[in-house]
């Protein structure tokens, strides 16, 4: 039974205007720093091999037998621009992730992605902090991934035995905790660590375990960590950034290992983006990049706890 108001936007007009001013503030911030706005395609022949992200697919008449992928992030195209000599760039893009729906997730969402050439991830963290101040939030604190675990669970996430992690997961409500280190750490981090940090200010968590490196460089420290950071506000993940991996061979190795994981899990295996790999081979400048969830940032600014309340329209399948 459709009610008369079903056509209405799910966000209030006040929040819709708030989004407009947030986007304006972001553009002005980037403009001041001479970071150029770019606009790359949403459709691609290549998906993402990350075992934890499901691409959405479609096709077009010209090649009806070929799967096209809706971008889950504008990362590959933007790195091709960087390799072509663009210098620092940013983009505000709609991205798509299948099977992600909930109060903080929408299958289609808005991402701010930017790359600062010549910056390492510490410098980029500072720049993200400046953006937060510009839009009226506080400068974030910083804490390593290991310290966050030590403070809340008195456990070292890099060295703890997998069985120990499994036992802890069971104590926190995951009865069928599996023998997968990455998944166990993800569960503990979201259900036991970040919730219990009692952090009122925005917080950067950095230096992630090696198994969570994706497209980040590794620090040859003891233990080895990935040079990656995430931003949390009130326990909600807002941004993810890292020192970009520029070694093409290492990148191909990671893609292949991810595809093996996908194959073992019975998941689709999208083709590796050969243009992105070729761009890496021709030389990606040293840089750091970060992806910011615009909808979630707007949830913080407008004090809403459901992503539907900051989106004009959604598929409404929550």
């Amino acid at each position: 039974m459709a009610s008369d108001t079903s056509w209405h936007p799910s966000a209030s007009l006040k929040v819709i205007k708030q989004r407009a001013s947030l986007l304006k503030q972001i553009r002005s911030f980037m403009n001041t720093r001479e970071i150029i706005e770019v606009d790359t395609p949403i459709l691609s022949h290549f998906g993402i091999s990350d075992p934890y992200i499901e691409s959405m697919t479609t096709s077009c008449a010209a090649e009806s037998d070929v799967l096209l992928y809706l971008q889950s992030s504008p990362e590959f195209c933007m790195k091709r621009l960087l390799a072509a000599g663009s210098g620092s760039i940013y983009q505000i893009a709609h991205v798509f992730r299948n099977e992600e729906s909930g109060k903080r997730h929408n299958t289609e969402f808005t991402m701010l992605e930017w790359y600062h050439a010549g910056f390492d991830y510490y410098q980029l963290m500072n720049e993200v902090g400046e953006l937060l101040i510009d839009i009226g939030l506080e400068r974030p604190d910083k804490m390593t991934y290991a310290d966050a675990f030590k403070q809340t669970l008195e456990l070292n996430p890099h060295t703890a035995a997998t069985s120990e992690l499994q036992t802890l997961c069971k104590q926190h409500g995951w009865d069928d905790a599996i023998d997968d280190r990455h998944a166990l750490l993800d569960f503990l981090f979201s259900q036991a660590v970040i919730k219990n940090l009692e952090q009122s200010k925005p917080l950067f968590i950095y230096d992630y375990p090696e198994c969570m490196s994706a497209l980040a460089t590794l620090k040859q420290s003891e233990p080895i960590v990935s040079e990656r950071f995430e931003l949390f506000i009130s326990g909600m993940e807002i941004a993810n950034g890292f020192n970009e991996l520029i070694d093409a061979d290492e990148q191909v190795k990671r893609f292949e290992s991810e595809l093996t994981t996908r194959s073992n899990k019975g998941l689709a295996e999208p083709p590796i983006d050969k243009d992105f790999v070729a761009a890496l081979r021709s030389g990606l400048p040293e840089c750091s990049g970060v992806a910011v969830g615009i909808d979630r940032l707007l949830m913080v600014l407008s004090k809403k706890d459901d992503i539907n309340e900051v989106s004009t329209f959604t598929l409404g399948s929550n």
Partner: protein
Amino acid sequence: MATYSTNEFKSGLKIMIENDPCSIIENEFVKPGKGQAFNRVKMRNLKTGRVLEKTYKSGESVEGADVVDLDLQYLYNDGEMWHFMNKDSYEQCEADANAVSDAKQWIKGEEMCLVTLWNDVPLSVAAPNFVVLEVTDTDPGLKGDTAQGGSKPATLETGAIVKVPLFVENGDLLKIDTRTGEYVSRAKE
């Protein structure tokens, strides 16, 4: 019975947990941008009423429970079982004392009750939100005393005992809110 993937979880969905039918109350999707997704699910065990929480790795499947809610008419109690009838199909079913539970003190016959069936057997019965029942036993009323304050117990025709104002007399018809078990007002019919 069908199985449901965590992607299909939503409040009201009936699933089987450890051989008991449960109804999902809340489904929270948790996922780090670059990591494993989980569904944290709060549900009610429909047999015991107990609320429990469970975590699933997203994409896992759970067996569905054959649970339906039907509006059935209460017919009679044979001393052991309570008999209900579907007014459309005239099909009858019987519920035991466990399923009828609190509802039995409010129903006398012909009421439409919300009966929850699991594999076609009544699991629980909810009486109508409001019922009208006759007072069979209460201390004599004080004539003209309609002032606020003061209450006394009254036994109703179904055997239920409720607190009523002092002016209520034997033979009065009372409207009762079955959800709270409280007296609402006197009724004409």
